[in-house]
């Protein structure tokens, strides 16, 4: 392939956003965003509704004009390029298939507009890729949601865009189909090797598919990293709460060495790795994921070297694969604990217990932030 083709598409083009800003009147939807998305990666923009993720996507596709900032594809500035002149295609939230055209023509649409004479082989290959070759003559309304979704994907992919934008593409599907499509999308992305930028409010979806996730909040990126990085080492309470569940315990740093930080909280001393602690003096928030916490009936049963808190079981939900506990601390706060079903005795509500975890599993956050940030949003997103 030549280095530049008719659409000005260049090889080796990362998508780069520089100071990208969008204001709607007094409301700042996207606030001076700087971001580089490497070519060939599966990138997720994750955030609650209204966080600016869709606006960012629309600016990349050209459907929205940025108030300030620039968009680069490779070394080319496409900020002012019309949407139909960008080597970027979108899979729309509700698919936006053309109802007056059959599936074949829907998929062929982009190629035809670019003046390709023979489109049949490409369309057939693409329909094969999404495994819907037998539906070529149907109209979009005759297809199920999942099938329409795959056609929308094929219609965008056939143009071999430099960047494929996916705007909550699985939002309209039911849970089972969504799972299936997540795997499918990942497979297709690996197969075609294009850059996918995926916008979603579903943290599980982002974690399943993306190589890199950017968590967005109020027009800014809270944290950027691999799913594991974000989950294990959230940078803010927002990320800790939005991405999965976290037990966040406010405390004060007592001592800090190069390896270990000791925090006093609820009258107990808790330790954590200095490397996972974002603040080593004053107020901190100590976080630990529920599945990293275990229960013991007596303090003597707790292995040595663990962080320990005592409390009362206030709620027990047996899920089967695990049991989820809510443990009320004497201070009134509740910690959640997910215990895998390893055949251990189930603690009933009212039982006095000790919760403990390996200090290396905790993370420390700056104490000067809203401890609840992002928690309600996650519930909203999951609903």
């Amino acid at each position: 392939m030549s280095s530049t083709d008719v659409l000005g598409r260049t090889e080796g083009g990362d998508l780069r956003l520089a100071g990208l800003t969008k204001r709607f009147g007094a409301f700042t939807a996207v606030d001076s965003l700087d971001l580089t998305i490497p070519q060939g990666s599966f990138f997720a923009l994750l955030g609650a509704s209204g966080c600016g993720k869709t606006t960012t996507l629309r600016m990349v596709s050209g459907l929205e004009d940025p108030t300030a900032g620039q968009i680069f594809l490779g070394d080319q500035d496409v900020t002012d390029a019309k949407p139909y002149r960008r080597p970027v295609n979108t899979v729309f939230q509700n698919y936006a298939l053309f109802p007056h055209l059959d599936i074949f023509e829907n998929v062929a649409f982009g190629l035809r507009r670019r003046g390709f004479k023979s489109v049949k082989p490409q369309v057939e290959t693409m329909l094969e890729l999404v495994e819907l070759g037998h539906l070529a003559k149907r109209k979009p309304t005759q297809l199920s949601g999942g099938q329409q979704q795959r056609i929308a994907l094929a219609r965008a992919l056939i143009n071999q865009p430099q960047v494929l934008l996916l705007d909550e593409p699985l939002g309209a599907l039911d849970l089972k189909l969504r799972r299936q499509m997540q795997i499918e999308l990942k497979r297709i992305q690996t197969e075609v090797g294009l850059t996918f930028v995926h916008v979603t409010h579903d943290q599980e979806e982002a974690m399943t598919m993306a190589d890199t996730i950017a968590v967005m909040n109020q027009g800014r990126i809270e944290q950027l990293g691999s799913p594991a990085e974000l989950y294990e080492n959230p940078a803010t309470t927002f990320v800790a709460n939005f991405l999965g569940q976290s037990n966040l315990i406010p405390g004060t740093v007592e001592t800090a060495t190069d390896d270990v930080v000791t925090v006093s909280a609820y009258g107990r001393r808790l330790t954590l790795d200095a490397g996972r602690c974002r603040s080593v003096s004053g107020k901190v928030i100590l976080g630990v994921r529920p599945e990293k916490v275990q229960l013991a009936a007596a303090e003597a049963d707790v292995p040595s070297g663990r962080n320990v808190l005592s409390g009362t079981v206030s709620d027990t939900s047996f899920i089967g694969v695990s049991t989820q506990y809510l443990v009320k601390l004497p201070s009134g706060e509740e910690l959640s604990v997910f215990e895998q079903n390893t055949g251990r005795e189930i603690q009933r509500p009212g039982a006095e217990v000790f919760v403990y975890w390996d200090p290396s599993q905790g993370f420390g956050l700056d104490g000067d932030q809203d401890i609840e940030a992002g928690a309600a949003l996650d519930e909203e997103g999951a609903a």
Partner: protein
Amino acid sequence: MSTSLLDKADPPAQQAPPEERRQRRNLTPWVLLLPGLLWLVLFFLVPILTSVSASVQTGNFDDGFKLTWHWANFVDAVKPYWRQYLHSGIFSVATTVLCLALGYPVAYFIAFKGGKWKSLLMALVIVPSFTSFLIRTIAWKTILADNGSVVRVLNDLHILTVTSKLGITVGTHVLASPGAVVCGMVYNFLPFMILPLYTSLEKIDPRLLEAGNDLYCSTFQTWRRITLPLSMPGVIGGTLLTFIPAVGDYVNAQLLGNASTGVVGQSIENLFLRKTDGYPVGSAMSVIMMVGTLVLVMMYIRKAGTEDLI
């Protein structure tokens, strides 16, 4: 045959016996249809049959009309009146085309750019129709009057010199010309074009246009490839709603035209009201117009292939 089936179904005791129930069920649609059917028979079927039968009768008011299967009426209904058919055809086609050309942008603008003003703008389109059709048409006499500003501006710009050469206007006047007739018709039928166009344009999901834009369509291409095909039901509906009444319209030709802009409607009126033996030929003309319009409309719908769009 079905009794055995019903026996097996074991109907609950409180229900009427199967036979009676089925009869009642079979009657219900007919009872519901009856008022409409009566209306259609009385005011549609009977008059049509009367017209058709009158078209092959002979006679006059004094001696009465007799069904003589006088097919020559149809020759008399065409030969002396070919100019009127031509005028009706030209005026209605011109009106439909102009209504489409004027109405489409209006409907498009209201549907896509109207925002919160949509309802108000659509009301503005319809509100003039609250005034009588006749009064609105007569108002055009004032608008297009020789000493009015419209004619003055057109004369100053020497537009009337050109249009008069083309036979649209007459000399330095607009009134009493084919142009004035078409102006009046376009004005009167425009809402009937805009309404269905607006309805079908308004239904188009703007995201489809964004998708078109995303898939290498310029603004015009998006309109050509997506908006236009999706608005075809409105285009067809609007053109039919404009063309069909325009073919039969003669008020505009009467009020805004001149002696040489006569349309079929005027001739039929003359034959019916001002001649004692005009009924048969007048009826024949009506039949020709009805059948002609029907055939044209059927051909049009067939060609436009609406079933694919609805």
